[in-house]
């Protein structure tokens, strides 16, 4: 049976039979190297000049040690971890929904988490920095519970797990609904409104070692199951009917993936607030640089997302030093620009 009867598809450069596995490993190393580099940069960037910071590294003192090891280092590691969680969540979301525009906050998880934090702030009258360091179940639990509630509401609205379009639609509806409730609550209490603004724009400002620990644990707990389920994700790209016929338990797979999505998103949101674009852009960046199957995407997207948020954190501290921008604004600018470039390039190709 000959192959090239009829119209033959043009082989595109990157599709040539290169040692595909080797290329993937190369990119993994690149992402790790970038993360290490950014960690180093992060240590010397902030309210002091690079020279001063380097001076601190040479001759330690109490205050400068506090800045370097209690503020800058956990901050950058926390940013990496949160970015990794978002990258993982984005990869899962885009795979489950088979939609390149899917992002972690799709199913109402961010509005649910925000509402949970709002309620918690209103009820207990705790502060926003309490948010970042509380490694215990307090505010993180509120954010997580809120994220779960948001996703549950979405599932209920779409009447089941198996219809993707209705899931997406329900997610949009829930996001609006919960956002409206949150705005209503905040209107009654202007002080909480100011605190929530900080949360909604995203902030890596108060990430300490406890936050890092929490984020790292969630990442370690989420990656193995996600890698395991990636085979099902691959099957899902062929359509739900085919996946089902291959023996993939669709409903359980969905639930498990949505559970992971909810866990990773909630953990990230509870520590750094609502940071957009990282979850959307990281999987894209990975797929644009090297072709990957689902399992490889699950590994690479977190690495990419981590580096992205690290970079955004550094920029947010450096651009208007000693003031700082909310990191969500930086990611929006970076991410938005990248998406515009992507669209432009796609248009060029066609």
């Amino acid at each position: 049976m000959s192959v090239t009867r009829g119209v033959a598809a043009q082989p595109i450069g990157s599709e040539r039979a290169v040692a595909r596995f080797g290329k993937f490993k190369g990119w993994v190393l690149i992402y790790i190297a970038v993360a290490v580099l950014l960690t180093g940069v992060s240590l010397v960037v902030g309210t002091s000049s690079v020279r001063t910071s380097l001076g601190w590294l040479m001759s330690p003192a109490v205050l400068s040690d506090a800045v370097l090891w209690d503020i800058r280092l956990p901050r950058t590691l926390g940013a990496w971890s949160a970015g990794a969680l978002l990258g993982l969540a984005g990869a899962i979301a885009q795979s489950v929904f088979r939609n390149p525009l899917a992002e972690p906050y799709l199913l109402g998880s961010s509005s649910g988490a925000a509402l949970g934090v709002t309620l918690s702030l209103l009820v207990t009258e705790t502060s926003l920095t309490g948010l970042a360091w509380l490694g215990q179940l307090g505010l993180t639990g509120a954010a997580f519970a809120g994220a779960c509630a948001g996703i549950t509401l979405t599932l209920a609205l779409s009447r089941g797990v198996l219809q993707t379009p209705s899931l997406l639609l329900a997610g949009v509806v829930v996001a609006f609904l919960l956002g409206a409730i949150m705005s209503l609550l905040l209107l009654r209490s202007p002080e909480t409104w100011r605190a929530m603004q900080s949360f909604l724009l995203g902030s890596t400002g108060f990430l300490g070692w406890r936050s890092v620990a929490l984020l790292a644990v969630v990442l370690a707990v989420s990656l193995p199951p996600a890698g395991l389920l990636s085979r099902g994700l691959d099957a899902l790209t062929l359509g739900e009917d085919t996946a089902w016929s291959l023996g993939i338990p669709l409903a359980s797979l969905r639930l498990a993936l949505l559970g992971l999505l909810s866990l990773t998103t909630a953990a990230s949101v509870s520590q750094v607030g609502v940071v957009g674009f990282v979850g959307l852009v990281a999987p894209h960046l990975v797929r644009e640089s090297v072709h990957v199957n689902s399992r490889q995407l699950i590994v690479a997207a977190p690495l990419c997302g981590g580096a992205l948020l690290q970079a955004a954190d550094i920029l947010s501290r450096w651009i208007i030093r000693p003031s700082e921008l909310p990191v969500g604004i930086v990611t929006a600018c970076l991410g938005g620009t990248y998406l515009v470039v992507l669209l432009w390039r796609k248009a060029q190709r066609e």
Partner: protein
Amino acid sequence: MRSRPGALLVGLLALVCTCAAGRAADAPIVLFDSAHHELRLEHPPTRIASLLPSLTETVCELQECGHLVVVDRYSNWPASVAQLPKAGGLEDVEIEQIVSARPDVVLVAHAPRVLERLRGLGLVVFEFETQRYADIGRNVTVIGALLGVPERAARLNRQIEDSVEEVAAAARSRLAERAPLVYFEVDSGPYGAGPQSFIGEMLGRIGVRNILTADLGPFPRLNPEYVVRANPDVIFISPTEAPHLIHRPGWERIRAVREQRICSFPPAVRDTIVRPGPRVAEGYRALTECLLRVAP
């Protein structure tokens, strides 16, 4: 700033108008507000709407409280104001509430959307600048002219300035040797009060040093490590945030946190500090009292 010549102009105009009109009972009142919008009233207003707490307080300090018909939800002093109908905040004004109160004039701070809407409905709207200490005196004068009680206004201004100077001078003398380094946090973010802000001016006047410099602006959003590096002696912060300071990464090294030199004020007291209004002297007193207590 354009407020200086503006203040002079308004003051002069007011003086001219009131002199020419005697008790200003019959002659029309012509004033320019902070946006240089001309205001023309036949006689002093008897129904006043105020959408900013400091303006409400000014009206009441000028003994014209009885003329207030509707205020914003944040106006809470004096107690009699609580009985009045509330028309929302500045950004989310309840237009109907204001219109149904049929005010002769509406006192607002800078809020373009609200202004457009109210003026479009035919109301007389007077805009005020309320950012700095200098604005207090000017606003008192203007409102006094507006209400036809310029002498009372002048007296109130003198009284405010005298009490403030009295408190400030006493504070300066007692804090002179210590000259504490201070950080005033306005909001979690963290947002600090710079020297150019109203609060910053107060702190400067009582002789403490601000960790923020003027070039950062009035309310910059800070990198938390800035505060750690500056190592202030005293931190001003809200009561809900105060117990969590020690948990902010690196902040346990700050002298103010280590030695528990924190100043928090209950909301009622905080109002006198953050509102550039006639009760500013009380704000000074609160600041000074706490400083004298906790400063090293």
